[in-house]
């Protein structure tokens, strides 16, 4: 992916660039709002990573201008402001995701890659398929190799999210935010337990596991 990072703190920008480069993405860095906006408009980027507080023009305003000018690349806000109302402001300004500082590098990579996926593969669909696993979004059914798997509603949503991001790392925080709509981290391993239950249902009777744990990062569903 080609990513532009608009961040005034040089150290932070270098860190983001390093992390994304390591994950195999091309990164351009811009240190202020004005030039960042110009570059984002003219360059052909797959995703924007925007710091919320920028000198000259703040991140919210920048993204609004970008969207008003017809920019369609998905955007991730980075911010130290993490309350729900801040997130809502970010999403209203045209952001697609919101990551609160400090964050783990794996979280950043997972979020950015999830954005790229959204831009290219988020076409309306009624069926999802990963390996032998098939999900019918209308009938709310799941089959693996033709064998029906019964899921609770929440497990269904969890699996749907994992399948939509198949091949990508999905973090626990992402799951809490997108599947449960919670913006805090419980102190107990509640998410792990849910994922392991789901794993029990989709992988237990099959030779090849689909749902992998990525150490120190999260989970990945992969054929």
């Amino acid at each position, binding site marked *: 992916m080609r990513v532009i990072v608009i961040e005034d703190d040089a150290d932070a920008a270098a860190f983001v660039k390093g992390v994304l480069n390591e994950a195999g993405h091309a990164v351009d860095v811009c240190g202020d709002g004005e030039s960042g906006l110009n570059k984002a408009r003219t360059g052909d980027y797959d995703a924007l990573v925007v710091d919320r507080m920028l000198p000259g023009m703040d991140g919210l305003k920048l993204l609004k201008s970008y969207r008003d000018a017809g920019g369609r690349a998905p955007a991730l806000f980075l911010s130290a402001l993490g309350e*729900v109302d801040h997130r809502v402001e970010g999403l209203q300004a045209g952001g697609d995701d919101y990551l609160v500082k*400090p964050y783990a590098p794996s979280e950043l990579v997972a979020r950015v890659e999830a954005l790229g996926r959204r831009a290219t593969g988020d076409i309306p669909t009624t069926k999802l398929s990963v390996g032998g696993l098939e999900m019918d979004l209308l009938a709310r059914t799941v089959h693996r190799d033709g064998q029906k798997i019964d899921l609770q509603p929440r497990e269904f949503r969890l699996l749907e999210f994992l399948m939509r991001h198949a091949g990508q790392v999905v973090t626990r925080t992402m799951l809490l935010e997108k599947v449960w709509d*919670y913006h*805090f981290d*419980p*102190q107990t391993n*509640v998410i792990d*337990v849910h994922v392991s239950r789901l794993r029990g249902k989709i992988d237990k009777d099959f030779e090849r596991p689909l749902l992998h744990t990525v150490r*120190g990062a999260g989970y990945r569903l992969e054929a």
Partner: protein
Amino acid sequence: MKIGRLPALVRTTTFRLALLHASIFILFSASLLAYLYYETAGHLGRQAEAELNAEFGELSAAYRGGGLDRLKQAVTERREARGKFFYLLLDGSGQKIEGDFDVLPLTSAPLGQVVEVNFEYDARTIQGQPSRRSAEGRISRLSEGGVLMVAYDVGELGEMNRRITEVVWRSAAVGFVLSLIGGVVISRSAAQRAEQLAKTTEGVMGGDLTRRAPVFGSGDEFDRLSEQLNAMLAKLERLVISSRSAGDSIAHDLRSPLTRLRNRLEAGLRDTDKDGPRAALVRSIDDVDGVLDTFNAILRLSRVQAGATGSFRRTNVTGITDELAELYQPVCEEKRLAFNYSPQGDLFVLADRDLIAQAMSNLMDNAVKYTPEGGAIRLEARRVSDGDVELVVVDTGPGIPPDDRERAVERFVRLEQSRSQPGSGLGLSLASAVAEAHSGKLVLGDGGGPPTRPGLSVTLRLPAA
């Protein structure tokens, strides 16, 4: 004159209250005295007036019936009857026809009109001493020419009027002075109480947080104000102490992970870590994450306590507990804890979903962490009799002794037994802050277990919407 330039005495509430008191008193007593005057002196005057009217009316009737002769006869008869009235009848040329006086005391009235007169005349007392007395009467010009005057002596009446008036004025003066004194006395006591309150706040501002306003037990407004002030000061004192100790706790809580972090990095640098430098770095990152989590928790707690976050709307809290039950059920089963969730239908309150969910999640986290395997956790959502809503988490863990419960809610307090458990020590503080942000409260209680393992019940109480 501007208020600010008034002399100090005039500016005091004491003086103003005294003045107000006196003014009101004067207003009332003036009304009272006016009424008194109206009913006494005024009444006598009106009575005399009415009698004069009647006398005059009768004489006029006599004149209309029989002309001047008839009138003269009537006047003569009346004079002989020695009533209270004096008469004087003059002919057209101004000559006296009949009467008690020789001349008219005033110029005559125009034809057909009646003129009221006040005049003085010379008379003799019973002892034969000459004296000057005042009289009041009426003069009327007769149609055939000639003048009739009827008058009465107002000496007695005047004297009574004068005395009544004098009494009224004296009482007013005495009343004014007395009410001024009363006002000063009353308002001085109020001013003293206010002064005591001012002294207390001054002392507190000076840094003495233990100062309290005196309460006299009379239950009056000043006592209530003092009690409120004292309650506020107690809360302030607690907050100051807790934020002081929070500072200490932050330092204390962060010192150990930071020291550990330093040692790890050092070991990695010298390549003495048993798993190699890489592993040292990985674990260092975990340590830093722990520190950052603590900071995030502090920030979030501060924001909630400052009321800087949350959008409050009518929310069905049963929806929140339903989701939490679903989120926590698996983890309970994993840890072999019996999980029991008993919602009680829809419960609407004015609430912020995310805050409530986070507070309850903290309570559930604690319950899962502290309840040993084989125990039980119960989550309840119910409406109590006064309409408030209670969200309750009950566990069968070690519980918190009653004496420690208040402290357990304070920032960073981790009771000795829980020091070994992971966590920032802010879970209960945050739940309590969330409760307060909703004008509710967090109540810690007994879990109802046996004395050796009483368990803990934590109730988040939210006021009725």
